[in-house]
Every structure is written in structure tokens, then in C-alpha cells.
């Protein structure tokens, strides 16, 4: 079965490189024999391939070759160094600069700086007094409070034990008066 010119032209490269199955290869061959314009296209293709095959790979200058080598070997390290420097500048440099600015303008607002200032001015250290409350009457107060609590704990029994109603009194007062005698 003959194939169309359109189909034949689409398969010309495959035909030239012998990539087609045998049956298809013979169909294309038939088509080339049958149609002169397909045959002309085929011959042009073969000549073009021959011409392309003969084209040499063009040379490059030494200067470009050296620059290419440098780019492939050195570009990363140089670029990464500069990138890292930029990162350090942004993430460490900027906060440090802000902190320095603050400590210069408002030294007392920065805790580290204010402490440093305090430690450097040694005369003021004597003005501070360490206060121990237990040595200044707090122990007496605590003893008195402890005694009161201890007393209170002695009376913290049940209602019956603290002088309220005994069980018998309760029965007598409430249950017997109302006639509500529990069944035995």
C-alpha cells in the first residue's frame, strides 16, 4: 500500500537513518520512486546531511577558554564568600549597629551597659545594703504566728468534739421532738 506524500516527507529522516521497520522503509522507497518532488526533497536532505557532517566545530580563543575554566572552578567560591559576607552584615551587623547606637544615645536603657557603668563607678557600691529580715525582728513575728497556728490546730476537731451537740443531745433535741423516730 502506497503512503501519502505528506507522510513520506515526514519519514524522510527516519528513512535516511534506516530507523523504520522494513515494511515502512519499502513504502517510503516506493513513494520516492513515484513522486519526483519527494525524491528531490530526499536528495536535498542527503546533501544537507553531508554538508552538515563536514562542518567543523569552530575553535575558541585562548582568552575565552581561560575565562570558562575560571568560571567553572572559581565562580562558586567567590560568589559564596561575598554572599556570606552580605548575610553576616545583615544578620549580625545591623542588630549590633542598633545596639551600639542605643547604648550611646540611652546608656541606661541597655541593661548590659548600665551594669557596666555601675560596676565602673565603685563609689556607689558602698551605698547599697543587703537586708536580712530574720536578723531584724522577723523571727519574733514568725514565732508568735507559729504559736497562734499551733493553738488553732488543737481546736480544729469535729463539731461534736468542740463542745457543740453530742449525738444523744442531737437526738433528744431534734428527732424526738418532731416524732421522727428512726426504725430499729
Amino acid at each position, binding site marked *: 500500500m502506497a503512503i501519502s506524500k505528506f507522510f513520506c516527507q*515526514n*519519514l524522510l529522516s527516519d528513512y535516511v537513518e534506516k530507523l523504520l521497520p522494513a515494511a515502512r522503509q519499502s513504502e517510503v522507497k516506493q513513494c520516492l520512486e513515484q513522486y519526483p518532488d519527494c525524491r528531490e*526533497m530526499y536528495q536535498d*536532505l542527503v546533501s544537507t546531511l553531508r554538508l*552538515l557532517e563536514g562542518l567543523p*566545530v569552530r*575553535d575558541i580563543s585562548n582568552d575565552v577558554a581561560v575565562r570558562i*575554566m575560571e568560571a567553572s572552578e572559581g565562580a562558586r567560591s567567590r560568589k559564596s564568600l561575598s554572599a556570606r559576607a552580605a548575610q553576616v552584615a545583615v544578620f549580625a551587623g545591623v542588630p549590633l549597629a542598633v545596639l551600639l547606637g542605643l547604648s550611646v544615645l540611652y546608656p541606661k536603657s541597655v541593661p548590659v551597659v548600665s551594669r557596666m557603668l555601675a560596676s565602673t563607678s565603685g563609689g556607689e557600691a558602698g551605698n547599697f545594703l543587703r537586708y536580712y529580715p530574720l536578723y531584724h525582728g522577723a523571727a519574733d513575728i514568725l514565732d508568735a504566728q507559729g504559736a497562734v497556728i499551733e493553738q488553732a490546730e488543737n481546736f480544729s476537731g469535729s463539731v461534736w468534739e468542740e463542745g457543740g451537740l453530742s449525738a444523744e443531745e442531737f437526738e433528744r433535741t431534734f428527732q424526738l421532738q418532731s416524732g421522727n423516730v428512726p426504725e430499729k
Partner: protein
Amino acid sequence: MGEKTESRLPELREVVKEQDRRVYNFCEYMLYDPALVAPLVINIFAEFGKVYRRLESHAAEYSDSELKIRLFQVAWTFIQRHLAAQEHNLHVGRDTRDLKDFGRDLLAGANAEDTHVREQIFQRILSLDADLRAPVVLRDILKFDDEQTMQILGMRWGVYRHRLNRGRLDFANFLRGRLVSRSSEATT
């Protein structure tokens, strides 16, 4: 822990030395402005250097030809980006290249050894659509095989073969000095 892993890659210097001319040629055939070829190729190799070091740090095993394909994949990505930027210029109308200034039949009896003829051939290759030109350049000029060209261009077999065929037929027409490509009418 902390042991340095052995890399099984070919030496970077060797790969670069072997392929620099071919990558340069690929870019030369794909770009319209020769002045932009060298900077682009340098960028391509800088990027390839990074790719290589990444592979090295992962202790990847790449053969010489796999690494070569990786290099040309990087090149093709850069070329596509560059052409996309140029396309914009073409639409705006800044590009004044005369793409169809043919005339002489270079297939019939022209001496391909002649420098002037070679320059004309080069110009006519540049007249092909970039999508058709890339397979032709890689397969027929830089002599990659079909499998490698497919991998570099990221195409499937059918698309690749179709573009290669169309590129060759269009180029044949351009070499003949025909202004209108008969093959593109027939095959599209």
C-alpha cells in the same frame, strides 16, 4: 560520621577542557548576537561548576557522557532563557536582522571549505526556528546521538524526531535559497 565520601565523577577540569568548544559552538549556533555568546558560555560553565560541586558533595556517580549531557542541559536552559528575552525584543521590533536574505544555492556545487560559503551556511542555520535548530545543531553538527539529544532537549522521541526532520528539510530549503520552506508546509 564526618568521613569524607569518595566522589566518583570525572575531573571537572577535564570535562570543561573537553567540552568548552562544543558548548561555545552550540551557543554560537543558537544565539543571534555573536557578542553575547562568550558571556553566556561563561555563565553556563559557572552554573555547571556549581552543579558539579553539588553532585560531588552528594557522592553522585556520573559517567563522562552523563556529565556531558548534564552540562548541555544547563546550556540549553540558559539558551532558552536568553532566546525568550530576545523574542521580546523581536516583537518590540528592535531586532533588525535580515533573516530571509538568501539567493545563492549553497547545495549545488558550492565549496563548503570556502570561508565565505561557511559564513553563509552559518547564517542560514541561524534562520531556522530555534526549536528546529537545536536538534539539528546537536545531532548533525555536534554529533550527539539521538538518545543524548533527546535528554539534553528534554523531549520525547516523537517530538524530537519530528523537529529534527523538519529542521533538516527547512535547512535544505534555506541552503537552496528558497525563501519559503516547502517542507514546513508539507509537514506541519
